[in-house]
């Protein structure tokens, strides 16, 4: 098997914040009854995490799980392990009505870091990103200018952004404009 390549292959940019494409990230879309014990165990086995509550993101590095909707989770695992984890998960869920699919290659992931990280995102998403409104461990699905996206904070100054692979280039350019030198807003 040849070397897989992420959408922008680790492109990066430094402005009022640092913007990097994170490279390949294993991702599984899991749809099902989030209160189901079998599903909870499958998630636990794959990520070591419990089933997240509404808009909760339980992520450590490249492993974790995010609440996407009332019947949907985004499971994060190391890219190399995604097929194995998916198989195990599918197997565990075989008896229940659920859907688990590999979407690793359908997505691109960016990291925005630095003191102005919140502000960069605040220029593109109609979301209150002030400290008291948005915290690590929360995920928000919204709009990045003209495309859909989801993001959470790894720490107080780091955002991770997920979008569709086909618009990775657009989103990267957006982030570059939003992070252009001299564009600090000075509110967050």
């Amino acid at each position: 098997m040849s070397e897989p390549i992420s959408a922008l292959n680790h492109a990066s940019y430094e402005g009022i914040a640092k913007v990097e494409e994170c490279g390949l990230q294993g991702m599984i879309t899991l749809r099902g009854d989030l209160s189901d014990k079998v599903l909870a165990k499958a998630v636990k086995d794959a990520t070591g995490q419990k089933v997240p509550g509404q808009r909760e993101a339980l992520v450590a590095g490249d492993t974790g799980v995010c609440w996407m909707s009332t019947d949907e989770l985004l499971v994060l695992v190391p890219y190399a392990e995604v097929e194995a984890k998916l198989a195990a998960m599918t197997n565990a869920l075989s008896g229940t009505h659920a859907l688990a699919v590999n979407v690793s290659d359908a997505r691109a992931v960016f990291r925005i870091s630095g003191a102005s990280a919140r502000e960069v995102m605040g220029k593109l998403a109609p979301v209150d990103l002030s400290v008291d409104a948005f915290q690590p461990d929360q995920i928000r699905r919204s709009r990045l200018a003209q495309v859909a996206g989801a993001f959470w904070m790894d720490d107080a100054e780091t955002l991770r952004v997920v979008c569709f692979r086909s618009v990775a280039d657009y989103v990267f350019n957006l982030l570059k404009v939003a992070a252009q030198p001299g564009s600090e807003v000075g509110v967050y």
Partner: protein
Amino acid sequence: MLILNCPYCGVDAEETELAAGGEAHLKRYGPGSSDDEFHDYLFMRENPKGVHFERWRHANGCGKWFHAARCTQTLEVFGTYTAQTSEPPQDIKDAIAAKRPGWTWRGFS
């Protein structure tokens, strides 16, 4: 620029995250229905000046469809609720009655 609370993900979503889906609580008429029934189902709309029930999708968000009760003249929102129902829940009806005594909409009041 409306803000509606998505009853599924709890977000106060602004309009740009949402997609409007037209009138709510339409009863589907398929094969076997009369021309009038089918016509009304597809084209006849309440279009009221005042209380209205409509469908929205949190398109740039959790992707779920939900219902909103809204005034088309003041844009006041009386509440939002699940799309998995064929009529507005009582608490929504009460909320409307508190603001618009004597309101009616199709069969509902």
